[in-house]
């Protein structure tokens, strides 16, 4: 069975502080999953674990039968796991087009990069993506001069170019206008068709708009799981999240 993300009993300890505490979770192929939780619940750490930025102290992390704890970021990314950061990071010195071209799924070793020529079909795909993220007219502007929202979009675009089986999206709508937010929700829903998407978000409205299964994390472990309505009525969630 391909494309399943599988975390079991994952713990991470930073000098005594348990950032993740025996966390277990399964993401099905094509599933759209929202993860919410108060600050310090370990959401970002979980993403770090999945993408190989941080190594777990204990537990297993598997994706399509690969043990992610043994691979480095690049290898994991090449397995088809894409990540969008909380703070949008795109390459300021490069143009929108070039940013997407870099993300484009293609041989990534230095030698082929040197001999790389952009085929017409690739050209088309990049243009399609630019259209989708609404940056077609900015193709040859440096990323440095884009607005915050546009940078968010560009990064999502880069994720799409990677054609990942699993997307990890960290607070995509932070600092977006309302209709930008809506647009994003629509986009993510559309994507989720072919690939699994994990969205970390504070904005409950947005989560509701996604209409996805929700996992509530707290103190490094899963507190509650289910539909948005279910978790919103969960007593423990109300305690830790909405506060007493």
């Amino acid at each position, binding site marked *: 069975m391909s494309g399943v993300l599988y975390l079991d009993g994952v713990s991470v300890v930073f000098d005594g502080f348990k950032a993740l505490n025996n966390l277990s979770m399964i993401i099905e192929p094509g599933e759209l999953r929202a993860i919410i939780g108060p600050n310090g619940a370990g959401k970002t750490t979980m993403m770090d674990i999945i993408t190989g930025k941080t190594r777990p102290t204990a537990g297993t992390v598997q994706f399509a039968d690969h043990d992610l704890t043994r691979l480095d970021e*690049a290898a994991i*990314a090449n397995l088809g796991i*894409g990540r969008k950061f909380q703070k949008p990071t795109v390459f300021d010195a*490069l143009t929108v087009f070039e940013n997407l071209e*870099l993300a484009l799924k293609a041989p990534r070793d230095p030698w082929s*990069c*040197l001999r790389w020529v952009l085929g017409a079909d690739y050209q088309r795909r990049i243009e399609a993506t630019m259209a989708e993220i609404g940056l077609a007219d900015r193709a040859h502007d440096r990323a*440095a001069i884009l607005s915050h929202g546009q940078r968010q979009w560009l990064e999502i675009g880069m994720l799409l170019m990677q054609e990942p089986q699993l997307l990890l999206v960290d607070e995509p709508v932070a600092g977006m206008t309302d209709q930008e937010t809506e647009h994003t929700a629509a986009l993510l829903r559309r994507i989720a068709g072919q690939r699994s998407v994990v969205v970390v978000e504070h904005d409950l409205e947005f989560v509701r708009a996604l209409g996805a299964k929700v996992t509530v994390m707290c103190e490094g472990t899963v507190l509650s799981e289910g539909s948005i309505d279910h978790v919103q009525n969960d007593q423990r969630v109300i305690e830790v999240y909405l506060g007493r």
Partner: protein
Amino acid sequence: MSATTITPAPRIQGGTILRGLLLAGLAILAMLPVLNRLPPESALYVSDFVVAVSGKWICYGILALAIDLAWGYAGILSLGHGAFFALGGYAMGMHLMRLIGPRGVYGHPVLPDFMVFLGYTELPWPWWGFSSFPYAMLMALLVPGALAGIVGWLAFRSRITGVYLSIITQAMTYALMLAFFRNDMGFGGNNGFTDFKELLGVPLNTAGARAALFYAALVALGVSLLLCRLVTQSKLGRVLVAVRDAESRVRFLGYNTTSVKLSVFVLSAMLAGLAGALYVPLIGIINPGEFSPGNSIEAVIWVAVGGRGTLVGALLGAFSVNALKTWLTSFAPDLWLFVLGGLFVAVTLFLPRGLVGLLRKGEGR
């Protein structure tokens, strides 16, 4: 995080002024040996001295390109490129020493003079094969490349970047300097190699030979320039810039940044080695002084002055700073260090994009 994230260097397209400058410069250089042939009283005559000096600058130009490729594009600030340069020089020097053959003062058929009077009986193994020119040239590229490969692999895979990498590379060239100063190494110690006789059957101490070497260096410069351009204009070039500005992000895109950095670092080291190999027959001596950390840093500042992240800038810097040096060391020796030191300060504080940055402003870009 590499320092350059704060001041990303500009993209590669040199402005028209710059391209003009570059072509004009190369053309003038190409003319020098011809003008040197003119009768001395002629107005356009240039002396052997000028030819010799500009020949040296050309080699420095190649070195500057090498550093720019690593630093300006990939954000790898190596303070040890002088070592790669010197190793290339030593490879060539060993070949030239072997060519002296029985013409040495002791007339020993195989051993260079310094080995004879230090009491060597047979040729140490590192010297084997250096009587062949192709082998020597190969070594001039491979040895620096291999060293860069090892050091780079150790450093990059354990994610040593920025300042740490600079310090490591500086320690590397420092250790090599100490090593080559030792006479027991069998590389002539402090005296190094000198008193070369011929190369490829041509006696070296003739104007003709110098012109030939000069053109060889110029061609090498052209080739290196094209090579660097090929790299920087390719997708690899863009990956390098991306690595320079946000390495971890590039990893999440699935690029193995270690191999990317390593490949460009090795390439850069080989270019430096090439520069050294051309430098030695032009100058007529190589000794461990070339390894001194000061040399490497000086070379870095050429690039900074010219404008890192642009190939033209690297060349511009190498030529202008060295011209200044040659001039000052004759006319105001005491001032030179002040000026050089001042350059370091001024460029880093006020001209982060170097002279090219200025010209760009002039161009209104």
